[in-house]
């Protein structure tokens, strides 16, 4: 995202609200990078990120007159992005015939399960990014919003349309899953997921 002083951003927003097309285009240009990055982090792939971003800006355009300006424009835009990505991924999950459940085991990305990858010597950051990418989208969403974008639990709950308690539970689950995926790279872990414990107890 191009860094722009908030006063300049506000001027652009005001002009765009009054129907200034050039101001609207500039507003898109200065916020595009940030919106795309968030969409990519939430969806985990380029095609979906492109769809989400386009949908986000169309919705923002249609709702611009209703934007009251009491929140930061970028915050408002990011909320729409989260919403659009949730809608897209939920719709996709409903229409997928193989219906990958959150409870199903995710792909094993540990380097020791893939000697070639280990040889390639990916650095830690790349492994974290890959692990994030293979998390089920509902779990990835909370990690992105909390651990990358530092949103408070209450805001995450609002954005996802769930209770704060449910958002916290989902975050715990997401962090556990991420930690399991990275066990080989970041040392041991407890090597015993909640799911496997549940399975053993039953």
């Amino acid at each position, binding site marked *: *995202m191009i860094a722009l002083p908030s006063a300049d951003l506000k001027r652009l927003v005001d002009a765009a609200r009054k129907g200034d*097309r050039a101001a*609207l*285009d500039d507003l*898109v*240009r200065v916020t*595009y*990078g*940030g919106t*795309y*990055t968030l969409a*990519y*982090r939430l969806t985990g792939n*380029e095609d979906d*990120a*492109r769809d989400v*971003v*386009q949908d986000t*800006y*169309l919705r923002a*355009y*249609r709702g611009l007159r209703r934007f009251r300006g009491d929140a930061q424009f970028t915050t408002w835009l990011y909320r729409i992005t989260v919403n659009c990505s949730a809608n897209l991924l939920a719709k996709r999950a409903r229409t997928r015939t193989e219906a990958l459940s959150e409870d199903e085991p995710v792909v094993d990305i540990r380097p020791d399960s893939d000697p070639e990858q280990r040889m390639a010597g990916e650095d*830690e*950051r790349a492994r*974290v*990014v890959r692990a*994030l990418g293979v998390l089920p989208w509902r779990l990835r969403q909370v*990690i992105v919003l909390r*651990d*990358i*974008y*530092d949103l408070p639990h209450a805001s995450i709950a609002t954005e996802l349309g769930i209770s704060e308690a449910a958002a916290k539970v989902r975050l*715990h689950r997401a*962090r*556990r899953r*991420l*930690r399991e995926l*990275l066990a080989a790279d*970041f*040392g*041991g*872990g*407890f090597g*015993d997921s*909640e799911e496997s*414990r549940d399975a053993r107890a039953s």
Partner: protein
Amino acid sequence: MRGLAEIVRLRTGECREAVDTIAQIAAEEDDVDQKAAAHVAQCLRCQAEVAAYRRILRHLRAMRREGIAPPVGSLAAVLAALETAAAEQNVASNTWVIRAAYVGGITVATAAAGAAGVMVWMSRRRPGLADTG
């Protein structure tokens, strides 16, 4: 007195119960379960987990400052989509104005015709009234 095996088993159980707290401690969150936090404070295995999770968090937080380059042409596609949406909105808005004018015209014409009808009826009734008077 507890045997070594039992101590290890209990400790492992406490470690598992503290697993969510470990991430919270690493993330420096406020609402940490105090019992689990007390366990983590005296358990080297859990402290190693906190350190590992801190490393993961460091990478996640660093992503906040890193942008992902959008694919070439995607910005242009969004601007074009907005252009189309704006044009559609203008057409919709013009259509609405035309419809409003059309409906307004019909309403005015109907009202005028009604008023004219009433006036004709009134003018025709007057002689009759005069006859009865």
